């Protein structure tokens, strides 16, 4: 690789030797962890479930980190620049209630039935048809998403650092392939916990220094109001209020109302993602006992509540503080496709997603800059490792072991797991290059992924809480929910006028449309599941023990003090969540 190609001159930030040392040290450390853990990944339980011996802290931080990729960081910082503090809903109501629900309601069933995966639970509860549908969709979407994230990250590295796209893809994917293939889920989890610390160490200075510069929270609010008024933005006062502007679609920059946020986001999308997406649930299944498995999402929720400090606040600070260094006038960020077009580059435009790197470059000199960039790289690699390890488990247990070779030995599954890790990374690389040549695929695949999550939540929820739900109903509900979501998406693409029916307002932006589409397809899934259940024969109760509420004895530890109780900490997190909503109302 030509070094001159890697380091172009027209970049957002320039790295010094100390920054490069920090980045190289990170790569060395993750590879060392993978090599060290190889000897402890010999059985299927070790390789795919990390031996089910993680403490609540490790499982909880990995649970959170698997979702805290760099695209998540930069994307939501960009969204907060675009939509204001409304973006924090994706970290608060869009995460906390569902994490607590997973911990206190759903986790016991996942844990007691000792499943290796969410499709594995569906097999036990509804049979092989539901397992096959969910596992094939999940496996396909996971590697596609991994590739898309890989490409998007490589583009960001090119824009921010001037690194060649091929170089970024090659180095990061080979590193991930090595450490996951060697150490399995344990290696992925270790690196996710490491990434968690690096992200905080690398990103926390931005809001601290930003608030000092802006004059505290009230100074920040005043500056945003002043800047947006100067730019003639509609509803300039709405950018720093979480709930008070959600009465009407037209009162906030997202074009959404409280119904979409509470029911579409909080009750369906977030519940679906945090309780049934195997990418995150797998981390909690690796906990050493049920109490740890219940505490892990609660610990994750406690830290998730703080993430807006390093993601949403930098976006708001960008709105308040960023100015053109040459003219001194307000710097207005634009959509990525415009910023990264030739015309955009010629005018020196920056995309919304660049707000975090811009703020990083504003406050962080040599050393700190390297740590910040390492945090972004670590976030990307950790997200990719999460996708690949979840794909490997679902492929090996729910596709290979269930459909192709039902007599596979444990040793054979581990061998398969190692190879599939490499194959998964290779497919991800292929997807990355596919997206490079057909960018529109990115929109479709990301939408496809969201199609699946909301109905899956309906199926799993009814499966756990309603013993009358039948195997046929589980399959047809999931199928109908997914199909209806794809249908609604296609309708809105073919006829933009459909938005006013699907999202209840013609002003609904993409995020608002996603919320309402999720809500409707979840309802379709639930209704079809209930109707088909009432028309078909249920499983006898004795076959549902360990799978359904009311028929499953939940093992509870006796003599556990209040401070060790998951319910106590769940209540503490819920109260903190409510206080935050009131403060930023």
């Amino acid at each position, binding site marked *: 690789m030509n070094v001159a190609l890697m380091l172009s001159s027209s970049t957002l930030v320039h790295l010094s030797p100390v920054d490069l040392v920090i980045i190289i040290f*990170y790569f060395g450390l993750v590879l060392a962890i993978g090599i060290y853990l190889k000897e402890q990944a010999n059985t299927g339980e070790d390789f795919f479930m990390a031996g089910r011996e993680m403490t609540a802290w490790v499982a909880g931080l990995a649970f959170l980190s698997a979702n805290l990729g760099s695209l998540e960081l930069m994307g939501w910082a960009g969204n907060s620049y675009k939509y204001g503090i409304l973006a924090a809903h994706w970290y608060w109501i869009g995460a906390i209630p569902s994490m607590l629900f997973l911990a206190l309601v759903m986790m016991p069933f996942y844990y007691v039935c000792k499943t290796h995966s969410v499709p594995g639970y569906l097999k036990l509860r509804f049979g092989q048809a539901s397992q096959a549908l969910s596992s094939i969709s999940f496996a396909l979407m996971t590697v596609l998403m991994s590739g898309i994230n890989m490409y998007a990250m490589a583009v960001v590295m090119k824009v921010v650092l001037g690194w060649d796209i091929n170089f970024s893809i090659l180095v990061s994917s080979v590193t991930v392939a090595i450490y996951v293939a060697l150490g399995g889920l344990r290696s992925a989890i270790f690196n996710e916990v490491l990434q968690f*610390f690096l992200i905080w160490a690398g990103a926390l*200075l931005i809001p601290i220094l930003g608030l000092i510069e802006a004059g505290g929270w009230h100074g920040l609010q005043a500056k945003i109001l002043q800047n947006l008024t100067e730019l003639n933005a509609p509803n300039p006062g709405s950018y720093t209020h979480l709930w008070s502007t959600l009465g009407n679609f037209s009162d906030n920059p997202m074009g959404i109302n409280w119904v979409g946020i509470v029911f579409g986001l909080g009750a369906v999308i977030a519940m679906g993602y945090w309780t049934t997406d195997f990418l995150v649930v797998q981390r909690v299944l690796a906990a050493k006992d049920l109490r740890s498995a219940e505490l892990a999402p609660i610990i994750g929720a406690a830290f998730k509540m703080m993430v807006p400090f390093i993601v949403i606040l930098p976006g708001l600070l960008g709105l308040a503080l960023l100015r053109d260094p040459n003219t001194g006038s307000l710097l207005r960020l634009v959509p990525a496709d415009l910023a990264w077009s030739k015309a955009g580059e010629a005018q020196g435009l920056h995309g919304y997603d660049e707000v975090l790197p811009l703020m990083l470059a*504003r406050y962080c000199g040599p*050393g700190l800059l390297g740590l910040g960039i390492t945090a972004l790289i670590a976030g990307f690699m950790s997200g990719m490792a999460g996708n690949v390890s979840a794909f490997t488990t679902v492929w090996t247990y729910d596709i290979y072991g269930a459909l192709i070779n039902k007599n596979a030995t444990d040793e054979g599954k581990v061998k398969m797991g190692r190879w599939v890790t490499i194959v998964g990374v290779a497919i991800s690389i292929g997807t990355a290059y596919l997206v490079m040549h057909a960018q529109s695929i990115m929109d479709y695949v990301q939408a496809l992924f969201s199609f699946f999550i909301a109905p899956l939540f309906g199926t799993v929820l009814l499966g756990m809480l309603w013993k009358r739900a039948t195997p046929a109903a589980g399959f047809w509900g999931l199928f109908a929910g997914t199909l209806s979501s794809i249908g609604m998406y296609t309708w809105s693409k073919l006829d933009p006028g459909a938005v006013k029916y699907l999202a209840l307002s013609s002003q609904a932006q993409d995020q608002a449309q996603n919320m309402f589409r999720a809500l409707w397809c979840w309802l379709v899934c639930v209704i079809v599941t209930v109707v088909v259940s009432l028309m078909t024969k249920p499983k006898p109760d004795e076959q549902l023990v360990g799978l359904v509420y009311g028929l499953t004895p939940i093992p509870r530890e006796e003599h556990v003090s209040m401070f060790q109780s998951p319910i106590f900490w769940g209540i503490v997190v819920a109260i903190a969540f409510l206080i935050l909503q009131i403060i930023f109302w």
Partner: protein
Amino acid sequence: MKSGGSLSIWFFIGLSLLVNGALIFARGIYETINPPVNKVVLWELHANVWWGGLLFVLGVIYCLRFSPARERARLAKNS
């Protein structure tokens, strides 16, 4: 915590904080003595000195608390 060996995950985290903290702190001291021409915003707060120092101290604490020797002793005691 059980980490599957004598090296705990927290030791790796300590190592990372220690090395990064030392590098950032050292660079901060160098910049304080030789101020750069192009300064970042709020450079006068010397964030790299105190932030690097903080990371370094945290790293030392983690490395000592979860050192391989202590982890081996703990595993031996538990077994």
